[in-house]
């Protein structure tokens, strides 16, 4: 492995370049894909000791991909859409040549035996796979604190969580360690960490991206999506990811170019606002302020803002915590220590080996959801909870269909609050509330994107809005998001990843929507 030393001059500043700029730079001969890999591993070497976004680095895969790109360039071929773009994958995505741990002791030594379609499509598009990213165990969590391998730190403030469950994926982009990363989103696991880390995170409509090779949490809720610094980067990644996969029969054909409407503006677009949702208890004033400002900005760009009602949305959380655990219980049944996974030594009987291996191999949150799902699916509770939850799901889905009869996009906060500190939320029910605004979108199956809209006036931490589109009309989201993005002078990465930044010291930044002068923040205090 050839890595440029941290103190040597870096030929490429990953943090400062977009995916398109990297590809353009390689085409122009300003640097090679190999240089990009060097640069990426150099910043990882210096910065990821603090962030802990990566669980595994795959230089042999990344340099092999770089060689292919450089050879294609040399041969004068047209480079694929993500040529030379450094990427990384949440560790619930199978990729041959890596472990797929799901952040769990259960799979700490599990080698991938095949490659997930989403991973394959990114690599086929010329991306450089740097490694695998930390996550809440089996994607159960909103802070990445439940990872067996220790938490990931928020690059904006290392004492704060990056969100979760795809915390490693968000932190890697915000920390300037990778240009695009993939996460999975079951109830907000892409959008909430994107919000906490001040980057763009997008959960496509269920069925747009193949789930083949992603270790399932809630099969009917899970969707794979990209993180990036800009809407354009996320659109490029989405173009590479979407489309029917014969190995996932819930995947759909898609002929959309998600970059097509990025400059179309929002004039004449109808933006829906759900008042009941945005003024929910527990939503921090700075979040509400940022949302109102975003709505004003959209109006200013010529969009029409319309109030819409989603009458059943308040039941989404309850339905989610029935359906999610039920599917998780069933999906996690396969981890029984018989053929792979953690095996408790010294057991004489298969039954005790299975029970003890699961007791030791799974963490607290995983066990909580397994027990909950096991209870909810048993006869009696099934009729009392699971069946009504599915009915609620239908009602919420219809709410969205009705709402999208009159609007093109719905806007809401992504998370009720900015990133919290480690250990700040220990009560599971409060933790679950982190996904208040995102969960309903998984329940309904629509696409949703978290777009950073500056720093909160109170915390100085990134705050985001969520843009939701009608099912399979995700291009609406990209159109609105790209327009809204132009209203903000957003730093694309956390201060620690900006040029000239000294590790752990965060520079003063402008806060948006704040009536008071910007506060100075120091990370790690």
């Amino acid at each position, binding site marked *: 492995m050839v890595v440029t030393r941290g103190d040597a001059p870096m030929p490429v500043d990953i943090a400062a370049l977009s995916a398109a700029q990297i590809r353009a730079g390689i085409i122009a001969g300003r640097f090679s894909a190999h240089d990009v890999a060097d640069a990426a591993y150099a910043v990882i070497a210096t910065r990821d000791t603090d962030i802990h976004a990566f669980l595994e680095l795959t230089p042999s895969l990344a340099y092999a991909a770089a060689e292919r790109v450089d050879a294609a360039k040399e041969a004068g071929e047209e480079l694929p859409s993500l040529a030379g773009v450094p990427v990384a994958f949440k560790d*619930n*995505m*199978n990729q041959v040549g890596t472990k*797929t741990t*799901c952040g769990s002791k259960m*799979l700490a030594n*599990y080698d991938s*035996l*095949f490659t*997930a379609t989403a991973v394959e499509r990114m690599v086929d598009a010329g991306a450089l796979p740097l490694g695998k990213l930390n996550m809440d165990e089996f994607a159960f969590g909103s802070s990445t604190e439940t990872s067996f391998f220790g938490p990931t730190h928020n690059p904006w403030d290392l004492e704060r969580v990056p969100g979760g469950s795809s915390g490693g994926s968000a932190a890697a982009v915000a920390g300037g360690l990778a240009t695009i990363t993939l996460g999975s989103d079951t109830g907000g696991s892409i959008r909430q960490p994107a919000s906490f880390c001040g980057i763009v995170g997008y959960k496509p409509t269920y069925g747009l991206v193949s*789930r*083949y*090779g*992603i*270790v*399932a949490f*809630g*099969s*009917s809720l899970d969707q794979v999506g990209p993180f990036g610094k800009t809407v354009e980067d996320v659109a490029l990644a989405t173009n590479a990811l979407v489309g029917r996969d*014969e*190995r*996932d*029969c*819930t995947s759909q054909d898609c002929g959309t170019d998600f970059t097509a409407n990025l400059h179309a503006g929002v004039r004449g677009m109808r933006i829906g606002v759900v008042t009941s949702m945005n003024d929910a208890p527990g939503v921090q004033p700075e979040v509400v302020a940022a949302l109102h400002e975003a709505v004003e900005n959209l109006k200013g760009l010529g969009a029409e803002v319309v109030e819409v009602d989603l009458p059943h949305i308040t039941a989404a959380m309850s339905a989610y915590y029935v359906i999610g655990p*039920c*599917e998780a*219980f*069933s999906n996690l*049944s*396969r*981890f*029984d220590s*018989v*053929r*792979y996974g953690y095996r408790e030594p010294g057991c004489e009987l*298969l039954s005790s080996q*299975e029970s003890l291996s699961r007791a030791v191999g799974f963490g607290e949150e995983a066990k909580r959801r397994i027990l909950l799902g*096991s209870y909810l*699916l*048993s*006869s009696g509770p*099934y009729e009392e909870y*699971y069946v009504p939850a599915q009915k609620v799901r239908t009602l919420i889905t219809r709410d969205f269909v009705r709402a999208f009869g009159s609007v093109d996009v719905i806007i809401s906060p992504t998370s009720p609050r900015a990133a919290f500190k480690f250990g700040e939320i220990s009560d599971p029910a409060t933790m679950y509330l982190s996904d208040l605004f995102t969960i309903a979108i998984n329940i309904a199956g629509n696409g949703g994107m978290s777009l950073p809209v500056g720093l909160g006036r109170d915390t100085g931490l990134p705050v985001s809005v969520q843009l939701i589109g009608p099912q399979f009309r995700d291009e609406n989201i990209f159109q609105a998001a790209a327009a809204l993005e132009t209203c903000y002078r957003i730093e694309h990465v956390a201060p620690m990843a900006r040029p000239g930044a000294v590790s752990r010291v965060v520079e003063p930044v402008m806060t948006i929507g704040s009536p008071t002068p910007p506060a100075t923040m120091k990370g790690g205090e």
Partner: protein
Amino acid sequence: MRSVEQVLRDWEVVIGLEVHCELTTLNSKMFCGCALQHGAEPNTNVCPVCLGLPGALPVPNKAAVESIVLAGLATNCEIEKRTMFYRKGYFYPDMSKNFQTTQGPVAFCMRGWLDLELDGAGAAERADVEKDRDGSYTTRIAITRIHMEEDAAKMIHVGGTDGRIAGADHSLIDYNRCGAPLTELVTEPDLRTPAEARRFMQKLRQIYLTLGISDCSMEAGSMRCDGNISLRRRGETALGTKTELKNLNSFKSLHDGLAYEIVRQAQVLEEGGTVKQETRHWDITRKRTVVMRTKETADDYRLFPEPDLAPYDLSDEFIDSVRAKLPELPETKKARYQADLGLPSHDALLMADDAMLGAFFEETVAIAGVRQARAVANLLLNDLAALLNASDEVEASTEDARITPAALAALVGLIDDGTISSGQGKQVFATLVREGGDAQAVVEAEGMRQVSDADAIETVVDQVLAGNPDKVAQYRDGKKGLKGFFVGQAMRAMRGQGNPKVINEVLDRRLEG
């Protein structure tokens, strides 16, 4: 122990069957592309999907769906246009995901039926139905559903007795079968005797074989059957407590196992005891049922809709296209054999029920002519069965017979034109079945020739009568049954070559004249 017939006088037996059938004629498994290959090296036909590796997803096998729709149409089921797969949870290493993908309350095939024709000894078991003059009866058995599911892996327990898990010190698992497409047919509790249960299974097997959806081998386990059985006093309407019977892996086991269980339950009830709800194993060597496990509480399989699979929709076009592929079923074939080929009902039934025999029969008739259909059927139904039963081969079947349709057609021709007698015909038939070859050649090689010359026969008949004056006197006193004796003696003297028709004519003249 009392006989089933005795028990059935006081008790009504209620039997329902669950019939599993592997779709062995398909190329691949239910939810992945792995080959279905009997006898392959263990754990060679496996992939991430059927091994239940994390991240793998199921994709339904359309050909398997076509097979089950065929089965449903052939058993008068309604085909459901929208069904869902469900997950049935249970922890056991033979199911790699620790849940089995099966179907929910609505299966591909619902609410079907089969009519069973019972005759002979089978019909005698049942006393409470109206029967035809020949003692036969027909009864309709309702089919609750036929659903699609995936098979489990094969486990081999090492170190115990009889390969059972009790006492074994370790187990081996072969995942080649894991995820194989499996149909399960469930009947309503409409069966009333072991003979009906056996007949149902035979009929279903013939239908599945005709459809070509499985090899239906009960020995190899590709078709297997569990019986649910309970007793109630005649006249009662409430169902008694049932036991579930397993290891019924032959028609004989199915019949005998149920018969044993009926008598056992009757004895328990008559002694004032109660039948426990339990699963019992038919021990074929000790000829008794033994407890496998007691079901104190209902198993909770945590059944819920499989979220990795969308609802499965069948279009009218698809169902119609499958209907168009339905081959002629045994029941229709039987009617045709009766109407067009003149077979008696029972012969037509037997012939239509055995797909291979029926095909052989039709091919022979095509050569020999419709006029010979009954003669061909007689040889195939009576003589072939007897020959195969008497064979040294343990499992001799129609397949092992070496006779060809052309040879059989020639043989019935030789009998018909009087070249050989029907008795000689049976001998030739036996040789053809054993060794194959040409009928004319066998006749020549054996020096067979039928003697129809009246003078020659008169000489022999006179000798027979002269040698048995006492019997001739008895005959003339009215003991007409002795005629057969004289025919036999004459035939013996002619070493079987005499024309029985002419012998009879000569005898009539001599005895009556």
